């Protein structure tokens, strides 16, 4: 699917893609449909900046088509720390908490995205407790993973004798 015929895709296919995001994996189809319907389909050209590091975040993007670079400012100028493609979900932390963007996102190919706005996302969570629960479960899982990674990192450090 190319960018030019992207907009022909209906919200049904958007729902399909949303389902592949772990954060939304457990959520009802009808709720995902609502999320898609209240979100904006947005295309970017190659080279376009979705958002800059330090911006106040107000939305997250689901990459439907194309690819992006995650770029972080460093002492030696911008550094690309990751390269993401189809089905990546970028900027999602800003949906849940008020913090500046931790990295910039730059399109490396013509991009088709679904822009999910914080406002709508919050409205959904407020009125759909089961959805909030799913998100909570997903976050707890992430935390658990992070904890595991952290303790294994500690263990590695300890075994390497650097503490």
């Amino acid at each position, binding site marked *: 699917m190319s960018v030019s015929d992207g907009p022909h895709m*209906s919200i049904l296919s958007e729902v399909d893609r949303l389902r592949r995001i772990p954060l939304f994996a457990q959520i009802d189809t009808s709720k995902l449909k609502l999320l898609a*319907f209240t979100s904006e389909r*947005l295309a970017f050209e190659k080279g376009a900046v*979705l958002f800059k590091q330090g911006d106040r975040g107000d939305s997250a993007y689901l990459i439907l088509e194309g690819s992006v670079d995650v770029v972080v400012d460093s002492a030696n100028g911008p550094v690309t720390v990751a390269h993401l493609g189809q089905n990546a979900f970028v900027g999602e932390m800003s949906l849940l908490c008020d913090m500046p963007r931790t990295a910039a996102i730059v399109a490396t190919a013509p991009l088709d995205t679904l822009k999910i706005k914080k406002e709508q996302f919050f409205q959904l969570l407020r009125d759909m407790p089961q959805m909030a629960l799913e998100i909570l479960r997903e976050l707890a899982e992430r935390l658990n993973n992070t904890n595991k990674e952290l303790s294994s990192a500690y263990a590695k450090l300890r075994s390497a004798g650097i503490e």
Partner: protein
Amino acid sequence: MAGESSLYRYIWRHSRSEQLTVLAVALAAQPIYFLSLTLPKLIVNGAISDNDYWAAHATRNFLHLIVDIPQSLQAWLGKQWVILSGFDLARESYLLALCISFLVLVGFTGFLKFLMNTMKGRMGERLLRRLRYELVDRVLRFPSSQLRRAKQAEIASMVKDEVEPLGGFIGDAVVWPVFLAGQALTALTFILVQNVWLGLVAGGVVAAQAMIIPRLRRPILKLGKQRQLTARQLAGRVGEIVDGGADIRVHGTSNWERAEIVRRLAKIYDIRFDIYQRKYFVKSLNNFIAQMTPFVFYLIGGYLAIKGKMDVGQLLAVIVAYKDLPGPIKELIDWDLARQDVQIKYDQVMDQFHPDDMVPPELQAPLDEVPELSGDVELKNVTAVDDAGFTLLDDVELKIALDQSTAITGGAGCGKEALGLLFARAVTVKSGSVKLGSVDLSQASDAFFGRRIAYAGPDGYFFPLTLRENLLYGLKYKPGALPKNCDHAAIDRYVAEARRAGNPDFLTDVDWLDYEALGARTPAEITDRIAEILDVVGLEYDVYQFGLQSRLDPKANPAAAERVVEARHALRARLQAENLSSLVESFDPGVYNRNASLAENLLFGASLDPELQASALPHLPHFRRVVAEEGLEGELVAMGLSIAETMIELFRDFPPDHPFFEEFSFIPAAELPAYQAIVKRAKTGGATYADRSQLSILPLRYVEARHRLGLITPQIRERLLAARRTFADTLPDDLRPRIEFYSPDHYNAAANLQDNILFGRISYGIAEAGTRVNAVMRDVLDRLDVRDVIIDAGLAYGAGAAGKRLTPAQRQKLGLARALIKNADFLVLNSVVSGLDDQQKSDIVDRVLAYRRGRGTVWVLTKDDLAPRFDRVVTFDHGRVVGDRTREAGARVAAQ
């Protein structure tokens, strides 16, 4: 009017000659009126029924006019007066002559009556016009403290309503009392002549009436005064409710306002009721006293007649004469009441229009030559106070040069605003002097102020005119010359009548603009000049946006319309060249526009008619006809069903007041259950006609690119395009002139400028599409020189009542622009951009200072941070100057 305490003196002074003319006409009409009353008797008695006479004579004398003198007066006046000796006529001719005379007399009396009434009406209206003008003139000359206190609704109610009864009274001010008094005196004299004693009794009763009735009426007049005041205050309160409407809603205090109004209405009712009671009591008493006289006549006269001391015929004559007396007396008393009533109204109104310290009229006279403002502006020991007497400026000594910029700074309440207001003449100078060059501020004429000094404060007032008229408002201080091709006779009449009513002879249809100060003359130059000022104050973008949203009449401005179409083509070429065509989906008669709604696609045109808007399409019979003809109904219902199902699925779990309904749903929360039932019926094949029509409405708002429900398949697209063509081709004749279809090469008069230039819809779903298209569009318009068309259209935007259609920031900028465009020698800006953000403020200060370089500009700053941009900074504290340094000194301090 000044010092004219009595209404009568005022009326007499300004309408003396007219009053006397009316009186003369009224007197002249009397004998004719009398004749027209006596003629019918003559026709019957003389021509028709007097058979005895005609048996004896062949002719009768016609127009033999004699006046018989009553017996009692014959001693002085003779037996009869012969006015015309007349001529002899046969019986039929005599009848004809009498009848024609009757007709002529009736016509003539009618004509005189008409003449008199017109004269009276005109006289009243002229005087009312004079009075109203003088009142408004006084408002224009109110000192600023009085203007702050005055309630506009009360003033308006006085000028419009309270003086209105005066107009009706003025016409009768002299004629009516003279007339009534004459009638009453005649009747009284007649009675006196018949019998002195009875005459004295009648006279005594009249005298008693004249003594008692006015006395009883005095409290009524006092109540009337109260009623007038209460009604005026009610008008003031209603004005407040309108002005404060938004705040009343914010605070939820509408019921307090209701209570307040009810209290006032109750008071008016009580006063009114009291008035009625007293009024009708006095009325019946008056009637009773009037009836006392016949009682006395019958009793005493009867007694005298019985005793044989008085002739019965004489008594009857007296009683008959008496019936003419009470009428005029009663009317006279009523008239006197009306007189006192309007006198009170006049006094009450005048009271409000005599504040102290009014601006002398000569300071407001238009001047042909306004003296230059040269030298310095100098404050010497100036102490100024506010209305409450608080000291705002305390012994200020300050010299301001007219070739540099001066910032006035200081903390809140330091007196800096008062310094600005000094030049708006809005604070009272208690001692000391302010010199504007060689002119003293207190002696400066309005013409001098208007031309040489410009002032803008943070909350300027704007008139409900266009932006252009508001902007140029400050340049209208002197009437210009008459246009060449005007109707001179009409103007002469207008001026003569104005002068007659004591109004000035200014005309509004001459050009009042001061082109010299504006520095522009042709319309194009003026627009350029305005655009320049708009740039300086940062209002250009707003006006440009207003312009894009407004419509242009291609008939009035064909060249501009042509340029807009040119710009449309150029924009499309540019977007293509820059590979941005996908940002705008153009209106193409042969292509379905995915970024427009289904209804817009069918209508494919613009209209100023509310019936022919895309949103009104379901109610348009022609639309339904086209749908039926094209067999589209099934498709629309199917699409509607699909939309309804989706909406129900998405929104059924939300509470009805959820913002999602408003923002996203095709179906309002309240209708969701009904649609649920409709869908259920449709699914089971039991949809009614009403169900189908409810469903077929839904897709009309559907925009494929935005809503992404995938409803517009290629087949449906073709069907809709066919329907679009049918809609246009079969359009009934009555609709044809009311809609304009989109045509790539024609200006669409019903669409706004933006739609005409863009000629399409900005695509949904492409990042930054709107911003990018706007940037390209602006550039294209600049290159093609079409921007002035847009700015011109934007300047025609109405500011609304008190500028309410503008944002506070726009109002402040407009106020600044209005002062700036006057090119005054001395510009005073008082916290003028306080409502803007820091970046805008600093940009505007820089641009204004650059624009005013080398000319006197004083800027009272809300914050100190912009002060270093000025040539000089004066700091105030507690109403005194506590710091004063020039840029060089400031730079030195910074360097150290």
